[in-house]
Structures are given as C-alpha cells and as structure tokens.
C-alpha cells in the first residue's frame, strides 16, 4: 500500500523518532510504514490521520498494492 507519510512528516518537521513517539510505536515501525514494508492496522491508520488532520484516503492509497 502506498502512503504519503514521509511527505507529511517532512512537512511537519518531524523526525521518524518524533513521529514514533507521537504514534506510540517504534521508529522501526514508522520507517517500515514509510517504505511500504508494513501496512498499519486500521486503528493506527486512524491515529496517523488524526495527527495530520487529514482523511485516511488522502494518506493511504491501496491502488499500488
């Protein structure tokens, strides 16, 4: 699944560690989501959407899967 997490993180000047802390996950997990190696659960995807104030479908796109 493609996502815009890396772009949104950069726009908000967050490091991977910052984002990991805000999402209460490991930095490894943030990195794996950004690189498309791991698809987050629905609750985590909603948490990401709430953090960046955007709908899930504007962050995650399953057309690439």
């Amino acid at each position, binding site marked *: 699944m493609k996502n815009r997490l890396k772009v949104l993180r950069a726009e908000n000047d967050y490091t991977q560690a910052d984002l990991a*802390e805000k999402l*209460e*996950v*490991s930095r*490894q*997990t943030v*990195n794996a989501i950004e690189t498309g190696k*791991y698809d*987050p659960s629905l609750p985590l995807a909603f948490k990401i959407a709430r953090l960046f104030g955007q709908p899930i479908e504007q962050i995650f796109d399953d057309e690439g899967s």
Partner: protein
Amino acid sequence: MNATIKHSIRQLAIWTAAWLVTTAIAVFGPTFIWEGNTALSALFITINLAVGAGMVFANIRHVLSLDEMLQKIQLQAMGLTLGVTLIAGIAYSIADITDVISQDAEISFLIILMGLTYLSVLAILNKKYS
C-alpha cells in the same frame, strides 16, 4: 525504544537469568551440593517451575509492550519456531525409536534448535522490516 519496552526487556532478562540459575541448581545440586537428598531436589524443582512461570509471564508482558509491527514479528518468529521444533522433535523421536540413530534422543538438541530457529527468524524479519 521507549521506556515501557526497556522496562519489559529488563524484567524479562532478570526472570530469564533467575530461571537459568534455578535450573542449574536443580540439575547440579544433587551431585555437588546436597548429594542425592530427594526432598531438596523436589524443593528446587518446584522453585524452578515457579520461576519458570514468572519468566513466561514476563515474556507475555514484554510482547504486549511492543507495538503492532513488532508483535507481528514476534508472532511469526514464535509460530515458525513452534512448527520447526514440533516437526523436527517428532522426526528425531521416531528416528530414536526406530533405531535410525544410534544414540538416545536428547531434549537439549531440541532446545538448541528452538533457540537457533527463533533467533534466525527474528533476525531475518527485523532485516525485512528495517
């Protein structure tokens, strides 16, 4: 790595070390410390079981302290380890019963296989998701 995970790893390490110590005492005690006293052997086996239970619960708390992706990695590593150990263990036992191998089947070989499988799968999966 957040503070909760560090704490759970520390707790798991302490329980594992305690279990190893009680295992060593239960195994070598009858020979080197209390020379065949069955009551003391039974006592230390009971202590070993109790500390082992503590280690299992510490492991559960550790896995639950991980985030969803790290839990997935643990689940895959433990699942594969269970499968490999079960299949290899049964085959090893059959080989012993049917005299395909000359020596008796030893549980220590299975424990070594279990440890190596778990560590190998964990390393591969961590590399995959890093």
